[in-house]
C-alpha cells in the first residue's frame, strides 16, 4: 500500500440514495394524466390535440428560452411538460390557439420562473395560467357550447354543451352517469371522472400523492353542498356536484401540487378543508357555477400560514425546552 494513488470519492453521509428523482415524479404525473388526456381527445376530437400540443410547446419553449438566458438547465426535470399538459386539460377545446400559448407563457414565466422556478412558485402555474386567461378572455374561456369547430379544412362535430354544473345551477337535470364517463361539456381534461380517478389511483399507488388533500377537499365540499346547497341530502345532486366542475382534476392533480400545498400533514388537511369550503361558496353563492380553480389559487396563497400553524413539534419536545424527566 502507500505507493498507489487511486482515486476514490469523498462526500458527506449518507452515501446511498432512494431511486425516486424529480424527473421520475414528473414523468409519473404525466403518465397518470394520460387517461384523462386520451379521453379528452376522444371526446372533443383532434382539436384537443392542437390545444394541448400548444400549451405543452408554449410551456417547454418558455422554460427552455428562460433557461438559456439564465444559464439554467431545468427542462430535464419535465415540470414544464406537466404544467403545459395541466393547462391544456384546463382549457375549452374551442379556445384560439394563440390564447392557449399565451396562457402557457404566463404560467411558466410569470407564475413560476419569475418567482425562482420549480418549487419556489407560490401558486399552481397551470391554474395561474388558466385564471389569467379567464380574466382576460372570459368569453372564450367559458364558451363550452361549441358544437362544431373548424380545424384547418376539417369540419367535425364535437359532442359538447354547457357544463353540467351550469345546467345544474340553472335548475336543469343532469345525467350523473354521463358525467362520470365524461360525456359532457367542459374543459378538455375535466369531464371524465373515471379517467381522472384511474390516473389518481396510479399516483397513489406509486406513492406520488396521498389522499390527505383530495379526501379532505371532497368530503368538505360534499358536506358544504349538503348543508348549503338547498337540496338537503340529495344523492343525485350531490354526486353531480362532485363529478362536475373539474373537482376530480383539481383535487387529485392540482391541489396536490407539491410546491403549492402545505408540506405539513396537519396543513394538508387544513388545505383540503379550506378548498372544500371555498369551492362550495363559489359554486353556491357566486353567480358562476364553477369554483375549483379559484379555490385552489386562493388556498395556495394561504399555504405559508397553514404550514406555520401546523408545524410539527420536534421529537421529544418539552414545553420550555429544558432538561427534565417526564
Amino acid at each position, binding site marked *: 500500500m502507500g505507493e498507489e494513488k487511486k482515486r476514490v470519492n469523498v462526500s458527506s453521509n*449518507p452515501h446511498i*440514495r432512494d431511486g425516486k428523482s*424529480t424527473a421520475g415524479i414528473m414523468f409519473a404525473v404525466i403518465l397518470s394524466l394520460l387517461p384523462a388526456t386520451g379521453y379528452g381527445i376522444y371526446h372533443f376530437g383532434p382539436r384537443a390535440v392542437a390545444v394541448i400540443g400548444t400549451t405543452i410547446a408554449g410551456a417547454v419553449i418558455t422554460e427552455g428560452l428562460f433557461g438559456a438566458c439564465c444559464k439554467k438547465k431545468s427542462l430535464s*426535470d419535465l415540470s414544464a411538460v406537466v404544467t403545459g399538459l395541466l393547462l391544456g386539460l384546463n382549457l375549452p377545446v374551442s379556445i384560439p390557439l394563440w390564447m392557449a400559448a399565451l396562457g402557457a407563457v404566463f404560467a411558466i414565466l410569470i407564475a413560476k420562473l419569475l418567482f425562482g422556478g420549480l418549487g419556489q412558485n407560490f401558486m399552481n402555474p397551470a391554474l395561474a395560467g388558466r385564471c389569467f386567461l379567464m380574466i382576460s378572455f372570459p368569453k372564450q374561456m367559458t364558451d363550452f357550447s361549441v358544437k362544431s369547430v373548424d380545424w384547418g379544412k376539417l369540419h367535425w362535430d364535437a359532442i359538447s354543451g354547457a357544463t353540467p354544473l351550469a345546467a345544474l345551477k340553472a335548475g336543469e337535470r343532469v345525467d350523473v352517469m354521463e358525467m362520470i364517463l365524461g360525456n359532457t361539456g367542459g374543459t378538455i381534461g375535466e369531464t371524465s371522472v373515471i379517467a381522472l380517478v384511474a390516473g389518481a389511483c396510479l399516483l397513489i399507488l406509486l406513492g406520488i400523492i396521498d389522499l390527505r388533500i383530495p379526501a379532505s377537499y371532497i368530503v368538505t365540499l360534499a358536506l358544504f353542498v349538503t348543508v348549503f346547497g338547498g337540496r338537503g341530502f340529495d344523492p343525485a345532486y350531490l354526486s353531480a356536484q362532485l363529478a362536475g366542475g373539474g373537482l376530480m382534476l383539481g383535487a387529485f392533480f392540482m391541489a396536490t401540487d407539491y410546491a403549492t400545498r402545505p408540506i405539513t400533514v396537519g396543513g394538508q388537511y387544513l388545505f383540503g378543508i379550506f378548498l372544500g369550503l371555498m369551492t362550495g361558496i363559489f359554486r353556491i353563492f357566486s353567480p358562476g357555477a364553477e369554483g375549483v380553480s379559484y379555490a385552489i389559487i386562493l388556498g395556495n396563497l394561504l399555504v405559508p400560514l397553514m404550514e406555520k400553524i401546523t*408545524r*410539527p413539534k*420536534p421529537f421529544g419536545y418539552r414545553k420550555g425546552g429544558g*432538561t427534565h424527566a417526564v
Partner: protein
Amino acid sequence: MAKLTFVGGIHPYDGKDLSKDKPIRDVLPKGEMVYPLSQHIGAPAQAIVAKGDRVLAGQKIAEAGGFVSAPVYASVSGTVKNIEPRRVASGDMVMSIVVDNDGSYEEVAARAVKPVEQMSPEEIREAIKEAGIVGMGGAGFPTHVKLTPKEPEKIEYVIANCAECEPYLTSDYRRMLEEPERLVGGLKIILRLFPNAQGILAVEDNKPDCIRLLRKLTAEDSRISVKALQTKYPQGGERTLIYAVTGREVNSTMLPADVGCVVNNVDTMVAVHRAVTEGKPLTERIVTLTGNAMKDPCNYRIRIGMSYAELLDVAGGYSVEPQKVICGGPMMGMALFDLNIPTTKTSTALLAMTEDEVSAMEPGPCIKCGRCVEVCPGRVMPNYLATYAEHFDEEKFLEYGGMECCECGCCSYICPAKRQLTQSIKSMRKIMLAKKKKK
C-alpha cells in the same frame, strides 16, 4: 400486536447478505499500530508513555482526561515510536500514540477480578471505567458516564441496542450469534447497577435467529426480555430505540437517563462483560468488511489500532477498484480518501462500493414534496432547515428545531431532488454547538 417502532424512517437496501453468514475471524496485526487519544466523546486521554517505551498488549498507555473521557490501552506489544498527530476516519488530525508492533503480542496480567456477585456497584463502574469502554456503536460516549446517572434507582430500563439498523453492517449480528452469553452476561452486570430496572434486548425483526437464541438464553431470567422491533432505519438510533421500546421521547437536551433508560450497544455490553469478569480492557472489537467491491466480505475480530489498509490486505483486498470507501455504514459512515488510518473503539465497518451513486446525481431545487418531513425521525422539517443552514439563518434554524436533528441521513436519502440536506444541517449544527460551547 403492533410492531415496536417509531414514526418516520426509511427502508434502504440492507446489503447484509454479503457478510451475515461469515463467522467472525481473528486477525493479528503485523504492522504499526496507532492509538488516537480521542476515540470518544469528551476530553482527550492523556498519554502516560513516552517515545521509546516498551508497551505490552493490554497495558494502559493513556489515562482518561476527565470524567467524561476514557483511557486507551495498547492492543499489541512493542515500542512507542512516537506521539504525533495522525489522520483519523473523520479526516481530522488527532494526537496519537504510535506503537511499533513487535509481533509477539506479549500481554500484561489481567486486572484481578472477583466474582460479580461480590462486587459493589461502585466496583463494577470502576472496572468499566478503567477498561476504557465507550459506546461502540459509533457515538463513542464513555460507558461509565452513561452508567452513572444521578439517581440509579430511577432507571427502569436497561436496553441492549441489538437493532443494527445501518445497512451492510453485520458485526453485531455475528456477535449475537456467536457470543450471546457474553452479551446477556454484560446486560446482567449492568442490571446489577440499577436495582429497579428491567433488561431489554431490542433486536430488529430481520434477525429472527438472534431473537430465538436470545429468548432461549434469557427464558429463565425474569428481569430480561427480548423485544422484536420493526426493521427500519434508524431503529438503532438511541432516541428512536427508546421510543420504540418504551414510548418515551428524549430530545437533544436530554439524556436517556432522564426518561429512566440506559442504552448500550451489543459490542459495548460484551466489552463490559470482558472487563468485569476477566479484567480485560477494551482492545478488540468486531469489524465488518463488506461492499460489492470487497473480494471477500467478512467479519473480523480486530485489535483496535490496526490500520484499515492492513485489515483490507488481510481480507484479500478489493475484487474491483471501488469508487467510494466508507468507514462505517452507508447511512452514517464517513468516506475515506486514504486507508492508512487506524481502527478505533468505534470502527464498525469498512465498506467498499463499486459505484458512488451520490456523485452521479446532480442536486436540483427542492420541489417541496415533503418526503424528508415524512421520514424524519426527529419530526423536524429538513427542507427548511437545510435552506436556513445554507443561508446561515441561526434564528430560524433554532426556531425550526434544527438542534433536534440526529443526522441519521434519512432526508438526504429520500430526497428526489437529491439535495444534500443532512450535510447542510449537520454543518450548521456543528457551528451552533461550537457557539454554545464558547458561551
